[in-house]
């Protein structure tokens, strides 16, 4: 693009949105240069603050006309570099598109704009006894738009699924500015599941401007059990036994000793400090059913011989248990100046093997690794602790992270359960999938977006990467607003 073309393009953006909503220059754009994967930074050409779907359409059309790459940005909490700006591209900040357009208690749906914060949907549904199920631990800040781009999950996704299982309909601006509607407000559909294809596409297919979500009735009651073991393997075996019993808990989480210690120091959740493995199992649903299931659960868990068990006595006690779990990552982060979170998946029955190997890999590299994970669905969250100020530590940590991802692939799992491929895991996508698989994905991308304008450079292994900087907590995390899971 020539200098005159570039100036014309910025003029056109400014004419459409007014000067206050088109940010250029280093200082105003600084906050948009990276996401929660702070190792990567890139300077965009401009950041635009949009107020309506029509403005998104017009901005996308201007970008398409001038062949300028763009991406939508929610709250920038991506842990994989998904909302890292495309160099010289436009960042379309969606946060002002944050209206809840409708909550329908009969259909049990909510229609929202993409900048609505995850938790705000449940808050709006609360008066009707409903809630929005996927619960990433960043839920007080991350947006529905970001959630759907990554198919985000949380601790309670075992029974009712991830974001994709809760999105019914979309209005989408395709990368050339064409607007389409897909899905609807029914749980059922006809024809290829295009909503299913769009969710999890990491912003590569365009921008969602209106989203119809499914709401669920709030569970009447919970039964939350904490069990402490003297080995991680024993906690893992308890999970296998619960699965074999035919129970379907809402959540099954495990923490290792380092994570327990850190969580205790941070929030005082009442966890036993000497446990090598701590299991949290939660049943949810109607009273009679949960009462009947909890008897079976206790019987099964007792057979796995925990040295200590604790049943949440009331809602406050339950909240305390979850607070420890949900703050575990940022708490572990305090033990170290920097850390990387991975989120690979392994078959549940190979959790023990995976954890032992991760421990060995950490020892080999001389790097401490803490573990907190969604045991019920085999989703690991190894936390790799390092000090970015020490020469070579970042590189060693990255290397260890890569070996852990390869381990997940070798065990028949996946490189990501919920954080997405983004910028960070691109090179491993080609190890998980074959050339023909990637080629099919690439062809779909190119047919939808021949100019590769939408979120250029993400997900596919062959794209160019910006320079590595350092891993530090997300600004919101440092401020204690959010914590990692």
């Amino acid at each position, binding site marked *: 693009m020539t200098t005159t073309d570039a100036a014309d393009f910025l003029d056109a953006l400014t004419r459409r949105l007014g000067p206050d909503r088109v940010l250029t220059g280093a200082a105003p754009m600084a906050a948009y240069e990276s996401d929660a994967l702070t190792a990567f930074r890139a300077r965009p050409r401009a950041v635009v603050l949009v107020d309506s779907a029509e403005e998104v359409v017009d901005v996308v059309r201007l970008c398409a006309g001038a062949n300028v790459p763009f991406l939508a940005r929610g709250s920038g909490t991506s842990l994989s570099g998904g909302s890292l700006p495309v160099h010289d591209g436009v960042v379309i900040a969606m946060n002002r598109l944050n209206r809840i357009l409708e909550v329908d208690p009969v259909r049990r749906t909510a229609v929202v704009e993409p900048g609505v914060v995850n938790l705000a949907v449940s808050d709006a549904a609360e008066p009707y006894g409903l809630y929005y199920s996927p619960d990433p631990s960043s839920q007080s800040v991350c947006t529905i738009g970001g959630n759907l781009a990554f198919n985000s999950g949380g601790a309670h996704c075992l029974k009712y699924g991830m974001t994709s299982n809760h999105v019914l309909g979309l209005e989408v601006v395709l990368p050339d500015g064409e607007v389409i509607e897909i*899905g609807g407000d029914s749980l*059922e559909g006809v024809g290829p599941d295009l909503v299913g294809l769009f969710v999890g596409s990491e912003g590569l297919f365009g921008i969602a401007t209106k989203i119809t979500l499914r709401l669920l009735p709030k569970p009447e009651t919970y039964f939350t059990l904490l069990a402490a073991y003297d080995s991680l393997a024993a906690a893992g075996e308890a999970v296998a036994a619960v699965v074999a019993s035919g129970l379907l808990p809402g959540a099954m989480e495990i923490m290792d000793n380092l994570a327990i210690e850190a969580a205790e120091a941070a929030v005082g959740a009442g966890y036993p400090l000497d446990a090598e493995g701590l299991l949290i199992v939660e049943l949810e649903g109607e009273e009679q059913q949960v009462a009947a299931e909890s008897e079976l659960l206790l019987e099964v868990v007792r057979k796995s011989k925990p040295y200590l068990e604790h049943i949440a006595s009331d809602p406050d006690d339950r909240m305390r248990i979850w607070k420890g779990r949900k703050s575990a990552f940022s708490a572990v982060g305090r033990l170290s100046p920097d850390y990387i979170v991975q989120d690979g998946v392994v078959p549940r029955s190979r959790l023990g093997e995976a954890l032992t190997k991760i421990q060995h890999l950490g020892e080999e590299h001389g790097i401490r690794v803490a573990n907190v994970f969604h045991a019920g669905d085999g989703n690991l969250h190894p936390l790799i602790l390092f000090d970015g100020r020490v020469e070579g530590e970042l590189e060693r940590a990255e290397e260890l992270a890569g070996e852990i991802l390869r381990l997940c692939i070798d065990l028949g799992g996946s490189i990501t359960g919920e954080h997405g491929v983004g910028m960070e895991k691109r090179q491993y996508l080609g190890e998980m999938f074959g050339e023909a698989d990637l080629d*099919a994905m690439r062809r779909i991308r190119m047919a939808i977006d021949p100019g590769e304008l939408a979120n250029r450079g993400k997900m596919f292994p062959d794209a160019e990467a910006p320079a590595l900087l350092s891993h530090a907590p997300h600004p919101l995390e440092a401020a204690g607003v959010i914590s990692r899971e």
Partner: protein
Amino acid sequence: MKGAPSRPGSAAEVAEAVRGAELVLPRGGGTKPALWSVEGADVLDLSTLSGITEYLPSEYTVTALAGTPLAEVEARLAAEGQYLPFDPLLVAAGSTVGGAVAAGANGPGRLRYGGLRDFLLAVTFIDGRGEIVRGGARVVKNAAGFDLPKLMVGSLGRLGVLTECTFKVFPHPESCATLRVAGMALDEAIEAAGRVGAGAVEIECLDLVHGLAGWDLEIRIGGRSFALDARLKRAADLLDTDVATLSGDADVTHWRTRREFGWASPDTSVLKLPLTPATAGALEQVLADLDASQVARVYSAGIQQAFVAWPAERVADLPALDHALTQSKLTALALRAPAGAGNQPVLGYRTGGELLRRVEQALDPAGRFGRRA
């Protein structure tokens, strides 16, 4: 149709067959291909590409070749106390794994945990260039790459020939029973359904069945045997009227018959329409306008879908139905069709055409799978 169907025995043979053909039509268990037979197409009969390749009860995953009868899959799962929660249709009729995914249809039980789209974890398919493509992963949680498994749900053989699929499975409820209220007015039944649905009791199935004496409301509840009676009573109290109860074998047979379309006479076309409690009225109006208020029909899965049995003698009115559905923004998929019922599986309103056109262009540039629907 061209010559005898070919019967590939492996994904590689399917790929070869696709590469050698101009127009390909995959067929699973389809006993009555009349509805979707395509002039001049090579039929790929996938019934020999059959068998469960991996079943890991402790992982909640099962993988099977596309031609595997769902009846075989369900039997294997049942032996371990597990099931396919999306409640596949026409299982006894011979429906296959690939056909079920390609049709993308679900039974009444999809209400509890979700539809086939929510339980399909991984696929292998042959695209229109004859390449073997894998998407998803054989674990219950995965966010890597585009969600190609979901794209194949409802694709009706137009985006690729499925050769292998992995599903998530769940433990089966220990026991189930059904509450039934007969002869309600539709409004009254929808209102009662909403009341029970909004209550605390978790429901497996909730169907409204049209009959001569009005609408029957049927609510199936499942879970630990020990708690079932108390939960049935709790739901019945919300209905506040005479309630009959079906349990044991009667309950099981009842819902089997529903998903085999045993309630619809065999010469009817059975259509599935996505619905909500708020759009049921619009469908009723369409049927009334076409003088079809007496056709057998069920509003299923918490009124999220309708199954409508369109009579054989009214086949000539299908174009009128297509038009009326489009006007009312309703869509229908033919799930069963007698010979001579036309060759259009989808009727009514469509969305996403432009996106679909681009996806078809990517996966099937030469149009080997046709450009139907």
